């Protein structure tokens, strides 16, 4: 009975596939590329619009129907944006802040994280929880007390308030790195210790070389956050020639109007460093995000 039932469909004979497996693979790949290209195009629309706006005359920006490609390309908008305000200077200031903050975080975070992850000392868990608790305090609440402290330290209108915190480690990065170091086998530490390595050697010769994924994340996120920082530089700096790029961009918004074409030209140039960084580190960044379980 069972054999008959099983045989029944076979009697009709197997249907020959409409397409060969190679053609199916080609079709599948083609469809996937088509969908991904369409999605990429949709994601890129704001960037295209920025580029288009940056090359328009002011009256064309809100014209109907919208013009994706301006009749005349106003490349001089870029020159005007960079001469109206010293955007080059602002970008250099931002670059300086990025470099110092990255150095600070890369020096401080592994040290602190290693301590929490590997060393045993009284009050370690309490300290760790306290450190995590600082992440829960909204930044705006700390603004006035921090301003008062930095003012008393005579650090207003200097870059100190913008770089000093990095040398004490960002709690988020410390947490990230602690969790990552905990996943590394302790056998490695013990083997090194048996070979005569001290704590510093274990950290710098054994642990850190294995921590490329979280270190890449620290590098990229510090770059990104510092480059896009607006509020703190605005609060702590007074001198026009010390402002970073985000404060500089804000000058394009006046009381009564925004010079959209110049603003877009300056913004487009200002995001180039982040785009370039992403192209260089995207492989490590995606690998890092996957390995430390971080999703933005």
């Amino acid at each position, binding site marked *: 009975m069972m054999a008959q039932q099983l045989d029944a469909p076979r009697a009709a004979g197997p249907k020959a596939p409409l397409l060969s497996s190679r053609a199916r693979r080609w079709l599948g790949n083609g469809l996937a590329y088509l969908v991904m290209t369409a999605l990429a195009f949709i994601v890129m629309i704001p960037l295209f619009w920025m580029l288009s706006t940056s090359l328009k005359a*002011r009256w064309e920006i809100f014209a109907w129907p919208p013009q994706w490609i301006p009749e005349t390309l106003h490349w001089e908008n870029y020159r005007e944006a960079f001469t109206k305000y010293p955007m080059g200077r602002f970008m250099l200031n931002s670059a300086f802040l990025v470099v110092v903050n990255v150095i600070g975080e890369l020096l401080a975070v592994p040290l602190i994280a290693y301590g929490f992850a590997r060393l045993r000392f009284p009050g370690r868990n309490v300290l760790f929880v306290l450190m995590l608790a600082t992440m829960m305090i909204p930044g705006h609440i700390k603004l006035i007390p921090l301003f*008062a402290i930095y*003012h008393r330290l005579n650090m207003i209108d200097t*870059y100190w308030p913008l770089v000093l915190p990095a040398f004490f480690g960002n709690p988020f990065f410390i947490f990230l790195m602690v969790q990552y170091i905990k996943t590394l086998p302790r056998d490695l530490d013990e083997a090194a210790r048996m070979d005569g390595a001290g704590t510093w050697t274990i950290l710098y010769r054994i642990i850190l070389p294995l921590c490329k994924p979280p270190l890449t994340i620290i590098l990229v996120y510090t770059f990104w956050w510092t480059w896009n920082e607006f*509020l703190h530089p605005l609060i702590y700096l007074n*001198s026009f020639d010390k402002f970073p790029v985000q404060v500089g961009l*804000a*000058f394009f918004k006046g009381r009564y*109007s925004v010079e959209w074409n110049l603003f877009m030209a300056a913004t487009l140039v200002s995001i180039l460093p982040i785009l370039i960084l992403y192209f260089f580190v995207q492989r490590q960044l995606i690998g890092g995000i996957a390995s430390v379980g971080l999703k933005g």
Partner: protein
Amino acid sequence: MRKSMLFVTLLLSLIIVLAGCTAAPAGQQPAAEQPAGEEAAAAGEPVTIDWWTVNSEEYSEEVQKAMVAEFEASHPNIKVNMTVLPESGFSDKMTTALGAGQGAPDVAFFWDNNWFPEALDLTPYIEADPNFDPSMYFEGFWNTRAVWQDKVVGLPLGVGAQFVMYNKDVFDEAGVAYPGADWTTEDFITMSTQLMDPDVKRWGGDRPRRPFRAIWFNYGAHPYSDDSMTVDGYLNGPESVAAYTWLWDLVQSGSTPTPADIEVLGTEGTGPVDLFLAGRLAMATLNQGHMLNAVKAGANFGVVPEPQVEGHERYVNAWSLTSSIWKGTEHPDEAWTFLSWWVGPEGQKFLMENGNLFPSIPSVLEQYKDADQEYAQAFFDVLKLKQVSEWRIAHPCDGAVARAAGDVWDKIMLGDIERDQIQSELDAVVPAAQEALDECRDRLGG
């Protein structure tokens, strides 16, 4: 050895990098950050005062720098350390410094009423200065932007006002006659409907951005009684119902951009000037800054006050920027010298001639270079109208009451209620509005 070299190199590079963060040399330090003793020791040397300002269409960084140079040339005993900030960040920085009680500038805009308690009372300085006469200012702006709780907390810099700008080309194309200064709210709806053209995505006019501004006052509507005790009969009174009904008619005409349109196509809260300049908004409620943009763009436009309502007094939503001295200043005399020069006839004239400021001093405003132009005359006429601010300054709870009645506004904007429901909807929000008024009155000490 290699490790030591690496360590030393790292340390040295760190020191070099951090050296870039160091404070400016003492000579470049803002005076407020130097110890008071240091100042005293340098007796006879010029006193440096800190001044925070913004970069705007009315006074660019270059123009203000030149103004400071002119001031310093005539006042060699005072140096002005100017900090130019972006418009969008000024409030955050001022609020932080005033909140910290330190690091605030000697002189700055105090454009937020919440900062007034931190401003120095200028009354003794005005009384002691024979060259300073408060009556030189427009009386309305002096009353609304200089005097607060019987104290003079600042001086009013420049004037601004809202009015309706209309695109003459669009009017000509549609064959509609230009509005006159005596036009009414009903004319506004009629013209807006005639001027709209969905085929070219053009709207006839724009909607008010909030209730109880000029048009509500033109209807004689107030959110509550003059003694700040009663909402019933005011918020839901016949004048208020008439104003809300006018809004309902305007929204239902379909000739105006929705709040969402304005949000998307407007300009970062600065008004729909770009839509107007692109010819997509035939009439727009804008201000003198937008007007100068239109002049610069070569637009063919006219200016009229916001429409009136027959039988009622006419109002304008106008303003000036309160410029004050921080009460924590260590140099009040020098700060007063600078403030009274900057916001006095000399400073305002400089900013008018070299920038785009419309001065708050009539005798200086008369010297405006394009004073004979049609648009300038229309703007000057608008400034003569009674100001909404006069009522608002005396009734600081109007925002709280209007917020409590926000549902009615939203429903009309979204087309969620019928015309004959406006009265009942306003009646329904009266208890919440009264509660908001009572709470606000108690909070402000009655």
